[in-house]
């Protein structure tokens, strides 16, 4: 893996692509307090301070090494009613899907509805 990317301004979330499926996933926290991946951007864990960001960075490194995800990096977000929203439009696309196909991607509930049922 290349050198750790420069940490963005906080608050931030951690996103990546699932190795097997390629889907965009977000680091979230389970009821037990452990970190886990979710396909639902509204459930992304928010890192508001350096300690929380460092925890996400360490998770990115270990999950990459464990062959679970690729291209994991922190993204700075603003807090909106529906949850965290990436400040940069490129990463906003990642939380939504292709803008010309509202029937596809996370904006259409791809992978999210099934996760909620599970």
């Amino acid at each position, binding site marked *: 893996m290349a050198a750790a990317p420069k940490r963005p301004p906080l608050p931030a979330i951690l996103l990546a*692509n699932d190795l*097997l499926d390629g889907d965009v996933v977000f680091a979230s926290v389970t009821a037990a307090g452990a970190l886990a991946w979710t396909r639902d951007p509204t459930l992304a864990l928010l890192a508001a301070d350096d300690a929380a960001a460092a925890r996400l960075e360490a998770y990115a490194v270990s999950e*990459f090494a*464990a062959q679970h995800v690729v291209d994991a990096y922190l993204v700075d977000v603003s807090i909106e009613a529906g949850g965290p929203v990436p400040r940069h439009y*490129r990463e906003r696309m990642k939380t939504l899907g292709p803008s*010309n196909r509202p029937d596809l991607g996370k904006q259409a509930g791809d992978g999210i509805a099934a996760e909620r049922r599970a």
Partner: protein
Amino acid sequence: MYRYDEFDARFVRERVAQFRDQVGRRLNGSLTEDEFKPLRLKNGVYLQLHAYMLRIAVPYGTLSSRQLRQLALIGERYDRGYGHFTTRQNLQFNWPKLRDIPEILDLLADVEMHCIQTSGNCIRNVTADHFAGVAQDEIEDPRPTAELIRQWSSLHPEFSYLPRKFKIAVTGAEHDRAVIKAHDIGLRLRRHPDTNAVSYEVSVGGGLGRTPMIGKVVRDYLPKADLLAYLEAIMRVYNLEGRRDNKYKARVKILVHEIGVEEFTRRVEEEFARLDGPSVNADPAEVARIATYFTPPTYEVLPAVSRVLEATKATNPTFARWVEVNTVPHKAPGYAALTISLKPIGQAPGDATSEQMRLVADLAEQYSHDELRVTHAQNLVLPHVRQRDLFAIWQKLGEAGLASANVGMITDIISCPGLDYCALATARSIPIAQAIQHRFADAERQREIGELNIKISGCINACGHHHVGHIGILGLEKRGIESYQITLGGDATENAAIGEILGPGLAAEDVPDAIERIVNVYVEARQGNESFIDAVRRLGLGPFKAAFQEVAHAVA
């Protein structure tokens, strides 16, 4: 159509098996991502924004019905029911899962297709004139040449680790429909004026991207028999001397530019003289064997003009317009080459659903000797259609939303996937194309404007060929928002030219207005039947810049 021999078939199957094993080793941890990434790229697997992407090679853009049906099946079974035809005459799937890709590659191998060398620093899929073998202005079908190069360049041991990717295009016609001047090597079949022998004009160092350049001619008349030795000489000079210290200066165009075309040519000729031609050049028997696969189909003897077609056109102006815009004359009397537009107003340029692929495959089987083509402008071609069948084809296309009569028109926009899919993109392309299409949707208005090529790229890599668009649009990021730079005067044909920037970047919503201003300048100033690009050449950028500035100032 070329058919795999036993060696080809075994070779592709072995590659699929290797990749299946590599995916397995990636998942069990014995390969790291850094080790695996080059392996997946060698098999056309990219990681994009939302998912993996699989790029499938369509050699020189030629497909059979069976192959297109298989692509439709893959799209349905392993993707989201659609695929995207690209400016390299390839097909990309946007949503395959890594776990499924070995299975997809097996399905491709079933129909003699693969994804080998659709990425990486190697010689990529060889492209060609989409009217190869049927165009009236053709000296010779370029596809036997393209197929020979495909075989020579597939896993060529010396040219698998080039400084950067390498793209070759071939045309056999006077009029360049393959954008050969924007390729690392562009080949044009032509007759020698003295001997009448069919030879190659060889251009090197074309390319778009960050530093757009038009290819320079290094050999006016290369004897056909010397093709591979000459290509080998070019590749050797590039492989040895192309820059490897800076990815953005690594293409052969930079080498040609830095040492000059004379010096580059001298080195190539020196290497060519040193090479043992007979040991490198293809065996004439093999060249002849390849050529037999491209023997034209047996055409019916028909009158030059179909009475049935003329009668139908007389009673149906919409159909008549479609025939006028989407067909070109054919070598064989009574036939036409038909372009099926994948640019219905408001759709992503170049996208086709699995249902549409099946329909086109059926039409190719029924009406076009089981053959079709992908064009670099992201449309499909039925190359051998009897004129009298055009009406039936038009009706069937209409039912599938594929009867747009806009080939070569302002709404026949080339567009890369842009930031809606692509990890490299700096801005979206597809919504810009859609907005322009909606603005100029009126058929009468399109007819009035005539031929006008708009080409859109979502980043400086220029997959959307914006530099050679009559109007080019490049999406960038400016201060955290998408910003679009407009260029004018590009040309993708034998009159190849790089467009010039008109002014400051615009916000997405202002692009259609700017395009409209530019078009209005042309409509008001044109003389007689003068085309848009001819008017731009005559008038220069001045009047267009002035009109563009009005938009730029209004929104600044």
